[in-house]
């Protein structure tokens, strides 16, 4: 089957990266053609796999529904056009009954692997792939957005000195992200995780000649690295519990409620592991409090922001939680933490977007906020979270590429240098508008469906966390609509405030905008909650477990949807009211709200807190102390050892060798020499009579010797 070839999907961009690195400079289009071709092929392959996986899952669901024609389950399926209370009742009614799944029916999972190293029984390292609905969906998202970004980059990065290097890095990044997605064991996921981190560092600091950019790259890397510590701790703890890295095995064991070698699951340790894993997600997906790196990462080129910091890398954390969803389901504590953090993030970041002047920063904070939505959604509903991930990838990438087009046309990032750009840049205007509306969750655009699913999930879950997410989520929707409207008006309405000549972007940049605008508008329809769509929709496509799918139907609460849309409309209205005239920086209402503005402009003083609370003590305190320790203690020990050895050597040389052995040897030689020179030599006197005398003496001695013997 096609999934057998799924390993090609990460392999193709990796190969492209190698070819671009080796031969890119000599090619006609400086390596861009290789990168685009590779990711286009990967996209085609991803489409093929998606067709296979999704159709298999849909067929499974159809079989299941055919098997359950009985009325007991009728309430659990189909249209859930009911109030929250009814839903709870319906669930309670079906509570006592286990949902029966016929033998042999299960969600599509395809796994292949090779063992790299084996030790002690079944434990070992393997490299393998696991294809299921979630993976297929991620493939589509990553390859499509990467393709759009690469095509866009041929225009945006045109003439850059390191053009080829840029494309090589984009391919490396794409390959790494796909590796992260396709991995069937946590070790391989970790490898992909770290690789995307490195690529992010390299790409953010692409124009490293300016210190701002390299500083931003380091900040991103180190902040996510802090999260990675948690990730590693979590992975190792899971291994300790289940003695395997393989995701399928871990999920199976958790599903049975067992642990390696024991009958029951250690709940506390599982929660600890999950919280540690979540720390990794907090770092990578820019959740509060590790979100500070994402706005500064806008120092990188705009295509980088679109690819990495909108659609792919930052969603890795969300993906991880979705991947290990059965584990999170087993730990209500972890779910609570996730919900709270997500809620704080979505609202806090949304507020920060209100006072930004740099259009990319507006979008950056918007991304953080939407990531908060996804994370909070996962606390209640698997489908809600990843559906929002899916839709957000498209319209946020669209918005970023649009901002890149604006920056290209105006040569400035700041909205205060823009204004009245609707006429000179129509394509940019319309696509940006579509993206903004999608982000603001205006029906029938994509964002509406996904955000609404989140709110509905929070509503039905209830409890403290559910209410928190619901309230903040709804208010967040209002804030989102408001700041996007502010941005739209500041950029496209009124008079041009800048000093350049704004012009529309070249075709290579326009076409990706249009191509992304289509899914931004329409992709929401794949997960309509209505009956005819339910069984063949997104939630069926991406299901990881048939039981979960059966027990968690898509939700659509009409009053809630109306309320959320109303909030969005109010936000747009407010924005229209305040920014209709596209005021300049001095007259911007949001920037004249005293303490409120100041707090937001200083990003809740978090950067200062981190700098003085963490960076300064470590860099100036602990690091200096460690350096002193290293220099004066450890190095001194080494030096003393060396000096000691040297002095022992010298002593041995001087005394033992020179005075002792050499003196002995020299003395022996000297003695022999003296003996020969002063004694033996004199025997050769040349005097014959002396010789004769010696002979006579010898004869006498011999005679005596013979006589005696």
């Amino acid at each position: 089957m096609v999934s057998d070839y799924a390993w090609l999907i990460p392999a193709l961009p990796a190969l492209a990266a190698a070819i671009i690195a080796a031969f890119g400079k000599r090619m006609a289009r400086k390596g861009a053609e290789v990168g685009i071709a590779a990711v286009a092929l990967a996209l085609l392959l991803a489409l093929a796999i998606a067709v296979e996986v999704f159709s298999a899952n849909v067929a499974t669901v159809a079989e299941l529904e055919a098997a359950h024609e009985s009325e007991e389950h009728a309430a659990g399926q189909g249209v859930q056009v009911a109030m929250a209370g009814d839903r709870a009742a319906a669930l309670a009614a079906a509570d006592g009954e286990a949902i029966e799944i016929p033998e042999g029916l299960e969600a599509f999972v395809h796994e292949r692997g090779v063992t790299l190293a084996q030790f002690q029984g079944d434990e070992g390292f393997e490299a393998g792939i696991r294809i299921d609905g979630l993976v297929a969906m991620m493939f589509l998202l990553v390859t499509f957005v990467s393709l759009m970004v690469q095509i866009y980059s041929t225009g945006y990065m045109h003439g850059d000195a390191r053009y080829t290097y840029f494309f090589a890095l984009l391919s490396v990044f794409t390959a790494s992200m796909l590796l992260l997605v396709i991995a069937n064991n946590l070790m391989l996921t970790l490898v992909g995780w770290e690789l995307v981190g490195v690529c992010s560092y390299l790409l953010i600091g692409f124009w490293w000649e300016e210190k701002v950019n390299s500083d931003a790259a380091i900040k991103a890397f180190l902040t996510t690295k802090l999260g990675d510590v948690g990730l590693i701790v979590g992975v190792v703890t899971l291994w300790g519990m289940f003695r395997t890295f393989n995701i399928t095995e871990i999920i199976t064991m958790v599903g049975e409620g067992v642990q390696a070698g024991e009958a029951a699951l250690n709940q506390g340790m599982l929660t600890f592991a999950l919280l540690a894993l979540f720390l990794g997600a907090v770092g990578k997906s820019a959740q509060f409090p590790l979100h500070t790196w994402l706005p500064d990462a806008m120092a990188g080129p705009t295509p980088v922001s679109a690819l990495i910091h909108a659609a792919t890398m930052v969603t890795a954390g969300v993906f991880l939680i979705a991947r290990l969803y059965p584990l999170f389901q087993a730990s209500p504590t972890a779910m609570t933490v996730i919900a709270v953090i997500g809620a704080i993030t979505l609202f806090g970041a949304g507020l920060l977007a209100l006072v930004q002047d740099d259009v990319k920063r507006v979008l950056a904070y918007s991304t953080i906020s939407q990531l908060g939505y996804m994370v909070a959604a996962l606390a209640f509903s698997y489908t809600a979270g990843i559906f929002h991930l899916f839709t957000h990838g498209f319209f946020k990438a669209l918005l970023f590429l649009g901002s890149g087009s604006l920056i290209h046309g105006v040569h400035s990032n700041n909205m205060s240098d823009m204004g009245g750009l609707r006429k000179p840049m129509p394509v940019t205007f319309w696509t940006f508008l579509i993206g903004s509306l999608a982000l603001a969750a205006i029906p029938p655009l994509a964002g509406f469906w996904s955000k609404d699913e989140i709110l509905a999930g929070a509503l039905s879950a209830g409890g403290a966390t559910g209410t928190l997410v619901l309230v903040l989520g709804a208010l967040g929707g209002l804030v989102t609509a408001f700041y996007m409207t502010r941005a739209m008006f500041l950029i496209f309405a009124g008079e041009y405030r800048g000093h350049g000549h704004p012009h529309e972007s070249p075709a290579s940049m326009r076409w990706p905008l249009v191509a992304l605008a289509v899914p931004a508008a329409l992709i929401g329809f794949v997960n309509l909650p209505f009956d005819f769509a339910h069984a063949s929709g997104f939630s069926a496509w991406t299901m990881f477990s048939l039981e979960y799918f059966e027990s968690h139907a898509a939700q659509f609460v009409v009053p809630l949807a109306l309320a959320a849309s109303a909030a969005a409309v109010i936000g747009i209205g407010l924005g229209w009211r305040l920014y209709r005239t596209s005021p300049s920086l001095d007259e911007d209402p949001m920037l004249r709200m005293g303490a409120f503005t100041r707090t937001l402009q200083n990003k809740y003083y978090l950067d200062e807190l981190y700098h003085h609370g963490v960076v300064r003590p470590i860099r100036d305190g602990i690091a200096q102390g460690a350096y002193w320790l290293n220099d004066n203690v450890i190095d001194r020990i080494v030096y003393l050892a060396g000096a000691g050895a040297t002095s022992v050597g010298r002593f041995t040389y001087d005394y033992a060798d020179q005075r002792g052995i050499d003196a002995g040897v020299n003395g022996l030689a000297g003695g022999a020499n003296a003996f020969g020179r002063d004694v033996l030599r004199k025997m050769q006197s040349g005097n014959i009579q002396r010789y004769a005398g010696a002979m006579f003496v010898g004869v006498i001695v011999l005679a005596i010797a013979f006589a005696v013997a």
Partner: protein
Amino acid sequence: MLAVYPLTFAALLFSVGAYGVLARRNAVLVLMSIELMLASVTVNLVVFGHLAAERGDAALTGQVFALFVIAIGAAEVGVGLAIILLLFRNRASINIDDADLMKY
């Protein structure tokens, strides 16, 4: 006669000749001392020849041997003197102490 007498005579001649060889400076005198030693050897040979003949050895062997020694001693004197002459011609001295080129 008692055998001791000629044997003692021979021993005396030999020792004196040895002293002469070791002590005399003139090369010719050294040669004369060597002749003394040879003479003592011939005496010894004759006496022992007699003694041996009494004990069953071939008769007159000692005397024949002594004859040979005398002849060879004469030849040796001739050659030795020739050498000394040559030494004298080259070195202008027959002092043996002066012939020490083989010295260290």
